[in-house]
């Protein structure tokens, strides 16, 4: 049937179908989570796996309620969030600065890449104890582990983003006597931003790992400490609560950056 053959009532029906489709798409992640929780419930209810290893969802919910009520979760989450934020601030800033410098001066890449690659290719958990010794047992060592882990994706994406700027547009700006700052602000930054923000999304999820690894090695507070503490007391539901909290923090930060990306790159979508 041709489009012109549609009755006057067909158009609203099509709109409704599109609207339903959009709602379903939005609800699908929630539905996936609900299905997973149901499967989890059945696994524990039918005792397919020992409850020692996988506690029932209801026990985890009870544990969550208790940890929220007595402030345990808030206290440890705040510590980890603080370490993550400072680590992101330092790691991303340094990654952006060095990434930009390398993108502009390829010689720097030859000089710095062995050190950067060596750092990146060594699991942070292997040298985290050394960072604790060097930077002390307080929060600073956790900020450093976070900064180290978020540095690399920022660096690589900055290099790729800046190097991806069209040479023809750069030449055009130079021919118009644009200064360095003007080229950076009006050409390089907007062009590289999608790639840099993609790196930032990766960095935010890695920041949780950096902070928690630092806390595992030695700390008095934080979600890493809460996991060890709950594990050492055989409080498996609390271990699950803590792990889900880490996931929630990582997802929230990721969503925040995605929102930022959506806002900042509005112009790009409009021009497209």
């Amino acid at each position: 049937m041709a489009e012109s053959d549609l009755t006057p009532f067909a158009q609203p029906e099509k709109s409704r179908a599109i609207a339903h489709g959009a709602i379903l798409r939005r609800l699908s992640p929630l539905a996936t989570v609900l299905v997973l929780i149901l499967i989890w419930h059945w696994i524990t209810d039918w005792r397919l796996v020992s409850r020692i290893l996988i506690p029932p969802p209801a026990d985890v919910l009870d544990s969550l309620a208790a940890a929220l009520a007595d402030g345990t979760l808030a206290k440890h989450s705040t510590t980890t969030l603080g370490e993550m934020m400072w680590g992101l601030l330092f790691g991303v800033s340094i990654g952006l600065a060095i990434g930009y410098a390398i993108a502009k001066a390829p010689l720097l890449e030859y000089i710095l890449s062995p050190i950067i690659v060596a750092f990146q290719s060594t699991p942070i958990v292997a040298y985290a104890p050394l960072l604790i010794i060097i930077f002390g047992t307080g929060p600073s060592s956790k900020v450093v582990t976070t900064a180290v882990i978020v540095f690399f994706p920022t660096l690589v994406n900055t290099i790729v983003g800046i190097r991806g700027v069209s040479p023809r547009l750069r030449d055009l700006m130079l021919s118009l006597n644009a200064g360095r700052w003007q080229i950076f602000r009006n050409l390089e930054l907007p062009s590289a931003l999608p790639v840099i923000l993609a790196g930032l999304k990766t960095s935010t999820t890695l920041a949780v790992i950096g902070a928690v690894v630092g806390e595992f090695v030695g700390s008095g507070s934080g979600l890493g400490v809460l996991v060890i503490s709950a594990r050492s007391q055989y409080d498996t539901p609390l271990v699950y609560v803590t792990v889900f909290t880490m996931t929630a923090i990582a997802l929230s930060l990721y969503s925040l950056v995605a929102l930022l990306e959506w806002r900042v790159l509005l112009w790009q979508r409009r021009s497209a």
Partner: protein
Amino acid sequence: MLNLIRIIALFALLSAAISSAQAPLVEERILLTFVPNVQFAPFYVGIEEGFFADAGFDVTLEHLQEPEVLDLVAVGQANFGIVSGEQVILARSRGRDVTYIFEWFQQYPVALVHSDALELSDLEQLRGLKVGIPGRFGASYSGLTTLLSSAGLTETDIEIKEIGFNAAEVLCLGAVDAAMVYANNEPLQIRNLAAAGDCGEISDVEVVTVASQVDLVSNGLIVFRNLLDAAPESAARMAFAFKAALQSAINNPASAYLASLKYVDTLPSDESLVAELEAAAERQSEFLASNPDRAAVAESRAEMLQLLTTQIDAGVLTQFQVLLNTIGLWDADQLGVSDLASWEAMRDTLGLMGFLGDDLGDLSDAFSNEYVLDSGE
């Protein structure tokens, strides 16, 4: 009477099992904590010298974190594991049904170490000082709580610093006044650093062991509950084999060190060290043939170290010294036996730490000496 019948039945089963040497070996995983280390020498001796095979087991060793060891044994993914007594109490209070059948470490291995310049004549003097612990969990935390309690102090009287397993470095840097450590290892490492002038202002350290204040139950062999119900003779044979391997390691540390070389990649194994240890092991075997008593064997170990010190560089000998120090924590008149008082002391400590809540746990099923006594006493 029932106990006597049970002991006789078990002993008969055990004898039958041992005599049937031709039977195929049963594969058993023993879950250990930490990483391969000379401190696990009795297990290496058990495998290399055939104690486990003689008892009918083909043993493989795996290293995990302590809670994972306990959980896997609790659900029967492994029949045997090594954990500390405190973990058994904690885990049982959370529904894990495991039984502790052999106390490996007769003395609690944790200690407080501090610079000798601090001149602590009484633990009460810890008040206001910074004390480093790996974290608020595990044996170090329990040990510190016990030490503080024995001096009438609580956590609030000192400043606790969570330093991870970096006590030597952090103490040498002066970031803490004292630290909780494993008595057999870290004090030796710190003394070596101090002797080399690499430990800041510290020239020597003092060690206050938890065992000197209170007898707490320590590391031992746990068993899957269903195995105890279905095949108690199997648990008794494992206890018997481990006891024999442990006694062998205690009696001949040179031989135990040599057995460990295959399992611990980082153990020094210079040609000269191995040659001297082989000679020492042979001399010790000859000495043991004269059936010396426990004190004489202890003396022979000290003489062995003294002789080796004149032949081998001190740095190369460090791990051997760690083994000797650890043997001091294992050795006892009755290997494997734990007493109720040490379990109660540990339960009280966990209560002080607030880990057990109102329910301090029932100790009646937590441990049993039946299997170790059946296995050879």
